[in-house]
């Protein structure tokens, strides 16, 4: 996590993975709410996919919040993850191959935990019958921010046991 002024040994594979995690998590964070909404509309509510896109552009910027605001709110923890991954894995090569491999596994598990919690949260909120269920969207980022260190910690524990 320390970015020193000296240059860090080049490692094309880690560099590629770091950038994939950085930009990939941002893309997943932004797109996942939409995928979940379309999924629930089409498979759970048996709606034609076209109905979701009807007036979508106008609804994106609707009063109070708007769909875009909600999706960006859900993406915020993924942005935190992205910046963490960029520093943590991007600077890993200078700590040696072992540390790099352990960090890689821990970050992948953190991402998996966040995606799992996000999918579960969106599904639970979108399929809830209560009229106030959408308040859950305000709390979902907090759950994701909790899931991230938990997933990372689990990854480090597994890595310490299996990656030597």
């Amino acid at each position, binding site marked *: 996590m320390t970015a020193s002024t000296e240059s860090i040994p080049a490692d094309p594979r880690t560099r590629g993975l770091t950038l994939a995690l950085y930009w990939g998590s941002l893309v997943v964070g932004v797109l996942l709410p939409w995928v979940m909404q379309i999924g629930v509309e089409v498979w759970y509510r048996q709606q034609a996919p076209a109905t979701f896109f009807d007036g979508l552009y106008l609804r994106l910027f609707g009063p109070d919040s708007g769909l875009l605001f909600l999706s960006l709110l859900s993406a915020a923890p993924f942005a935190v993850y992205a910046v963490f991954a960029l520093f943590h894995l991007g*600077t890993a090569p200078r700590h040696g191959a072992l540390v790099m491999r352990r960090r890689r596994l821990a970050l992948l598990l953190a991402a998996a935990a966040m995606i799992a919690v996000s999918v579960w949260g969106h599904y639970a909120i979108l399929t809830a019958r209560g009229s106030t269920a959408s308040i859950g969207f305000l709390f979902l980022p907090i759950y994701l921010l909790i899931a991230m260190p938990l997933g990372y910690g689990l990854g480090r524990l597994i890595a310490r046991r299996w990656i030597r």
Partner: protein
Amino acid sequence: MTKREIALHLALLMLLVLAGSGFYAYQKSSAMVPFLIRHLDSNSLRERQAATFRLQELGNAARAAAPRLLKLTSDPLSRNAPDATVALSRIDLTAARAAMESAQTALRSPDLPARRRAAETLGGLGLFARPAVPALVAATHDADALVRDRAVSALARIGVPAAQIVPALIAALDDPVYHVRHAAVAAFNFDFPPSAATEALPTLQRLAQDPNPAVKQLAQFAAQRINEAHPIAIELSVARYMLVRDRESQLYTLRKLAMLGPQAAPLATDLVPLLQHPEDIVRYTAVETLGAMGPSAREAATAVRALLEDREPVIRDAAGHALLLMGENQR
């Protein structure tokens, strides 16, 4: 990765966030009004609704949309006429008054669908439909149950002192049609401040044995709500907090205060800043609420008198009416 590479990717992300925020702000600005007006003519109901809601959010800045929205409010084929009515009341008071007068006339029309639409429209106008209260009270005796149902719901949502409408709503609690009774019970449950509905308690307790399970359950809740009503001072404290929040919270709270009438007078001076609010609908609703408080709100009379010079004629009229109710002269 080098430090420079990391900084570059972070800067790219910041640029994306900045560009996105700018685009979002532009989409929420009044520059979108012509685009939104075009979508009021869309074939898709969802698009029309979305455009209407966004125009409503823009308030007076969307005044250019008023003529088109006014047409929508009286179009029998438009399924978003009630939404258009609410939006109109936030955008252009003169146009909203035209919609209210047209609905008030339609409420006495022999055309049944027109009467049903009119009752629903008036309910969406809030305090703006105050002049239509006598017509709505008469409509609670309409031969058609749906007109009665909508008239009852509308009366509860307008926000006039409870004494003016409670007798009509208590009568509706004994309506032979269950959904009219349900509308009346719902009004006491969700719309009335509990302290303004104590008169209805005996009828609600009787309705707690209604043969219709939905009416029965809601009547039990309503009776319990009135029985456990907080002292008026607590209701007013909550209202004081709500009055400094967003526009829709302010309008909701003002309607509740208007229902309390003179009981809400301790908050009269809290309403004075709202009389200078930039949005017409807030100034209008605030002055109507002060009028509903009557002579007990006299300490706000000077601020109300200033509105006799307001640029909006509907507000000038409302200020004159409020001064009359407060027992003050207009000079």
